């Protein structure tokens, strides 16, 4: 195999994991944009999505589309519940209390999952016929193609939602200036819940796509995925929607390039090195807005 085809192959891998990171990073970024919270429980929402997908397919022999829909609905409901139960009572509290609560919610979800499903991995049956599509010399795995397409459609849909719909515009208004948004008649609490719902729905899609590539559910699977998506969100500029997308793909491709250089055990290290460099050099990320403290 020539160097060229190897690189293309790795780029395809990078796009596949990158689109998953991007979907998850969007949830981080949108929530941060609206209530300035790094929702560290976001990764664990994906874990719950994976268990839902596993249950639907392994236990109820449901078809993958139904499993996807169930995971999306389950994650959306969970995301909104977490916001209402854990974060809403802290709306007036210092931001550090919210952050600690988010970490608490994360451990809570992981431990509940372990209690209910046990610590062992549950294997999700393969649901995509993975005969690669041959394009000249390059073989594109079907899962990669489907992942990139589904993620792409989700992001386009999100863009339309945020740019064109009344609720999407309300979301942007609240994230810019919650006080002024209230003076327009926007209900802040509903808008925040809506943001969590959208972010968690994307995480639900992400969880099923993740399961295409790594078909097993474990209680802690969400933490590393969540952390990497968090790095992607910071790289893109936390709070920025296009930033989260770009950051996700950048992290995915960076990992793939490290692997293709034969250093796959360095993959995670490189991701976190990127985080350190971003925080040192450009803490607002690629597309973030300069931080201004609101008075």
């Amino acid at each position: 195999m020539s160097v060229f085809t190897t690189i293309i192959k790795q780029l395809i891998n990078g796009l596949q994991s990158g689109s998953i990171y991007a979907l998850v990073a969007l949830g981080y970024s949108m929530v941060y944009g609206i209530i300035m919270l790094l929702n560290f429980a976001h990764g664990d929402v994906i874990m719950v999505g994976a268990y839902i997908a596993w249950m639907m397919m392994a236990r109820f022999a449901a078809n993958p589309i139904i499993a996807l829909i169930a995971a999306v609905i389950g994650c959306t409901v969970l995301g909104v519940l977490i916001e209402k139960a854990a974060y809403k009572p802290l709306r007036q509290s210092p931001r550090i209390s919210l952050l600690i609560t988010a970490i608490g919610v994360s451990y809570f979800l992981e431990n509940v999952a372990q209690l209910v499903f046990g610590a062992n991995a549950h294997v999700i049956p393969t649901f995509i016929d993975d005969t690669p599509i041959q394009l000249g010399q390059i073989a594109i795995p079907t899962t990669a193609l489907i992942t990139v397409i589904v993620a792409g459609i989700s992001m386009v849909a999100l863009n339309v939602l945020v740019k064109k719909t009344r609720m999407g515009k309300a979301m942007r208004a609240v994230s810019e200036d919650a006080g002024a948004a209230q003076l327009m008649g926007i209900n802040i609490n509903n808008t925040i819940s809506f943001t969590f719902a959208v972010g968690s729905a994307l995480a639900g899609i992400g969880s099923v796509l993740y399961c295409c590539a790594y078909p097993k559910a474990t209680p802690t699977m969400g933490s590393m995925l969540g952390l990497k998506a968090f790095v992607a969100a910071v790289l893109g500029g936390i709070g920025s929607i296009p930033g989260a997308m770009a950051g996700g793909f950048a992290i995915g491709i960076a990992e793939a390039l490290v692997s293709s250089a034969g250093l796959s055990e360095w993959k995670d290290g490189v991701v976190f090195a990127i985080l350190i460099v971003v925080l040192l050099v450009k803490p607002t990320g690629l597309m973030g807005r300069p931080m201004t403290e609101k008075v």
Partner: protein
Amino acid sequence: MAAMLKVNDIHVYYGKIHAVKGVSFEVNEGEIVSLIGANGAGKSTILKTVSGLMHPKSGTIEFMGKDIAHMEPNKIVTKGLVHVPEGRRVFAHMSVMENIEMGAYILGKAPEEAVEDVFTRFPRLKERRKQEAGTLSGGEQQMLAMARALMSKPKLIMMDEPSMGLSPILVEQIFSIIYELRESGVTILLVEQNANKALKITDRAYVLETGKITLSGTGRELLEKEEVKKAYLGG
């Protein structure tokens, strides 16, 4: 004539700081009423309390006969009372048109005739409707903030320091727009540091000092008062 807005003996606190100490005033339909006073007198706090961003510890606020003192701001807007906050607070990263649409949020879709109406009043905004609001000049942002407030067809508009930081020509323009608004039937409660300008277009005014009303009267009366001249009119 029954008062449109009736504020009765409100006390407002920032934590332990007693910012508004038993203020009462009224705004009648069709009037321009001003609250004037120095920095920190409590003018902005009063507007924030009326619009629901803050709540009084005691006292009542009645708007068109309904007590709104403990209502949330997004509910108060639907009653026809809007607040153009200090510092304009336009959504800087949204376009001018989107800002205008947000003004009509409670109506669902922005009604076309309302959009036409604000574009007739503020032709500059029509030219710049696709621009991000943050790229507008201070005067244009003030016009946008006013246009945004007009979109929900309010009965009463409260404006906090609309002339702040603007050049004399723009100040003139903003005040003439306020005057025109009143002519078209909108009632206005104005907070201003520019007492001279405010009193000239005002029907009635209240002078605030450290959280209390110390004087009130028609605009003309207050312009003539020695203590007002000394303290606020530079003479």
